[in-house]
């Protein structure tokens, strides 16, 4: 554990809400609009935190716990990422499984909170969320397996840290494939076009937004902040693969990471501007395709 990685973690928590802003700004500029300011989400969060909460009479403690569990699991998952390119604040053998487990825990909590309202819209969103996650999770594991084979390490800290830098010369092709696959996963897990459209306003067409339809006030702020943080976590995975930073000095490595996160956000904005949303039945095909990329990466590593 280095001092830089802790500072970087705090920075990541502060900077995360700017990423959706960058995405929206890119999209607006590319489609010829001015768009909201990049820091819009901070104002939204500040407004929501000061508001009161409305709870449906149908709901129980499960509804109230949902946003909290989702956010806490993401914050704990962030501890396993080597933000300075060397080692993570927390690490143990097989912590990749804990990382995936924490993402699943957050999803389980939000889906149940949605079901707790008894609304058919939220039930629909929950059903779609778990359907897409069922195809995203094996793809995530294919990526992890490829990284285990390339780096010979069972920790996220190693898979994205120093051993990754050593693996680039001999397994560059695999790492490119895994990085691409992870970028598709980023789009799917964060409900971005072509899987889901966060800008849509019709409940029937939404996935993530519709599960949280009944959350309000500080609870909604927790959820919005959690979504931004999740985008940042997946962004860190993608950036870490494409920019092994073990050779750089600590502050430079962290600076490169945040610059990379900006680039990823712009890329997401570009994808959102140039592609349309896929039909729901096509989404599994996209994810299986991304999994196939990672599988090719694994085949290259077999020996």
């Amino acid at each position: 554990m280095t001092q830089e990685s802790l500072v970087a973690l705090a920075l990541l928590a502060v900077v995360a809400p700017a990423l959706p802003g960058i995405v929206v700004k890119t999209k607006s500029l590319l489609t010829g609009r001015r768009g909201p300011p990049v820091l819009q989400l901070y104002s939204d969060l500040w407004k929501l935190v000061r508001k009161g909460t409305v709870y449906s009479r149908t709901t129980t403690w499960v509804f109230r716990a949902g946003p909290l569990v989702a956010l806490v699991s993401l914050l704990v998952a962030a501890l396993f990422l080597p933000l300075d390119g060397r080692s993570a604040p927390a690490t143990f053998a097989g912590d990749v499984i804990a990382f995936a487990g924490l993402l699943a825990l957050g999803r389980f909590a939000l889906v149940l909170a949605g079901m707790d309202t008894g609304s058919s819209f939220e039930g629909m969103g929950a059903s779609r969320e778990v359907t897409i996650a069922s195809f995203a999770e094996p793809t995530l594991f294919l990526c992890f397996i490829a990284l285990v084979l390339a780096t010979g390490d069972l920790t996220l800290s190693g898979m994205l840290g120093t051993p990754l830098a050593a693996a680039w010369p001999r397994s560059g092709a695999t790492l490119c494939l895994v990085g691409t696959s992870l970028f598709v996963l980023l789009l799917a897990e964060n409900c971005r076009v072509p899987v889901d459209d966060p800008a849509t306003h019709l409940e029937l067409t939404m996935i993530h937004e519709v599960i949280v339809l009944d959350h309000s006030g500080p609870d909604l702020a927790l959820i919005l902040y959690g979504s931004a943080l999740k985008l940042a976590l997946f962004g860190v995975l993608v950036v870490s693969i494409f920019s092994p930073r073990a050779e750089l000095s600590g502050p430079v490595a962290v600076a490169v990471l945040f610059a990379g996160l900006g680039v990823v956000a712009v890329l997401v904005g570009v994808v959102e501007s140039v592609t349309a949303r896929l039909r729901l039945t096509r989404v599994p095909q996209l994810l299986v395709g991304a999994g196939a990329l990672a599988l090719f990466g694994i085949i290259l590593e077999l020996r």
Partner: protein
Amino acid sequence: MTLVAVSLCLIVLAGMAGGLSRQPAAGEMLFRVLLGAGCVTGAVPAVEVLAGGTVAELRFVAAPFGAWVFGLDALSAVFLLAILIVGAACAFYGLAYLAPERGHRAVAAAHLLLTLLITALALTVVARAAVPFLIAWEVMAVVAYLLVVFEHERPEVRRAGLIYLVATHVGTLLLLAFFATWAGATGDLSFAALAAHPPFSDARSGIILALALVAFGLKAGAVPFHIWLPEAHGAAPVHVSALMSGVVIKMGVYGLMRTVLMFGAPPAWWGWLVLAIGAGSGVLGVVWALAQHDIKRLLAFHSVENIGIILLGIGAGALGLAYGHPVVAVLGFAGAALHTLNHAVFKSLLFLSAGSVTHATGTRDIDRMGGLARRMPATAAAFLVGAAAIVGLPPLNGFVSEWVIYQALLRGGSARGAMQLAVLTAVPLSLMGALALACFAKVVGVIYLGTPRDEGAAAARESGRGMILPPVGLAALCVAIGLLPVAVVPPALRVGGLVAGSGAEPEVSAVTATVFALALAASLLGAWLWHRVYTGRRRPLEAVTWGCGFATPTPRMAYTASSFAAPLLATFGSFAGTRADHTASSFATHAFDPVLDRVMIPMWRGVSAAASRLRPIQRGGLSRYLLYIATAVIAVLLYLLAAGRGP
């Protein structure tokens, strides 16, 4: 071993006290005390052995087919512990669950049979010779059958009982062949003698291992041998289903691990086969579970899934032995043993809570429940813990064992050679996790959350203490194991090392994992307390659920279980085992078991039709039958003469 013997005597005495006492209240009290004492007495040596101690064997020399030996090693101990924990919870629950039936049915006999089942299970895992093992195995099978057909006036229960009885006896028959092939001409059938057998030819070891896989796979309920499992689990009283799903099917797992322990390193094809069956059982089990509306059948299919996960651990372990990677072998078997214990705890918990729910609502169809978290808060909380545990979410016990199995598979990937390919089974394992999450989101959401869909659900009341405490106790155990991997992983590694016959000690960082689990639990708790204070100060408002402007939502508008699962089942197409019936004004979906209903039953029909062709030779005339007998005897004599072994 003396303590184990005392414990089993106490358990049987408890059953007799519960069954034979003239005064039910006093009998039940005696049942509780004796059973509790018996389970604690038996757990002491099991924990001692798992902590690294040893227990002296018990030998009866003057017995047929070699000495009858009973012993307790780490492998037996982990199963014994599961049997005693789950057995006690199910027996206590059964007292309250069957109480309303007193006077209508043979309740006392059911209690006695349950204690006999626990005893037979315990004897199965401590037997160290084929004959006592087979006797305990058969008693277990028959007693379980008697418990399954407890409500025998219903035809579907009798059908389930028949399927179970046939399946289990096919398994027993194969086990006889298994021991006979292994022992050969020697008369000594003790496990020590079998293990000391000289190495076999490839063909004979192949037959032995294939027989073990089918015989124990039938008991474990691995696909395609699972056909009896959802039927029997659906038909039995719920505390019996809990015991069967929790520990009876685990006897198949025990058998496989004991076989590996006695046999030594199996050939690689066996490891790959176990891995493939594990992946198939796991994925198909959870897909079929998604399609179910009947809560008990749904949980039964999840047992098929979890047996798949356990088999992935055994398969990885066997491959580690075959290819000479002791670390992978130890981790694989350790993960399988730990997941066996964990699944026993959370699956019996889920069955018992489901029993309380069906008891309170009067239906097993989850689409007619809803909103029960408000009406039955304790049962709902226990079920939620079990659901999160079976999905493998941290910081609960399911995560710990899946973490060990994943490590075995991923480390197999870092090895060189053919072993590397085993790492790809981590992908079906992750698919199982994600689908199980979908399935339990559906179950918890449709049963406990939202609004009641039926009068039965609206009128439901929380059960009495006798039906709350056992599931809550099991839930506490799920949390405890999940929070303290450091307490359970080293004993599991001891079991893995014993089965693998290796002293390899893999680095698993159980201590750091414990810190992680505790930190996660502490942050969740802290966040919850903060939220209570924060929102409590602001007086939240109450309103109806947002219906996009529709002001009076009705329960019929809530999402049903079938709609929830529909997108996933559509992706799996004809594997999913669902059928939709629609007319102009109605729509209904039905779930069936593709293997039983599409393969096995048509096959049996075919066999029965072919057999009817033989009817002409069976005319009922005595002289004709005498002719058949004479012909047969002459044919045998001729054969013996020709073989040169005549009289």
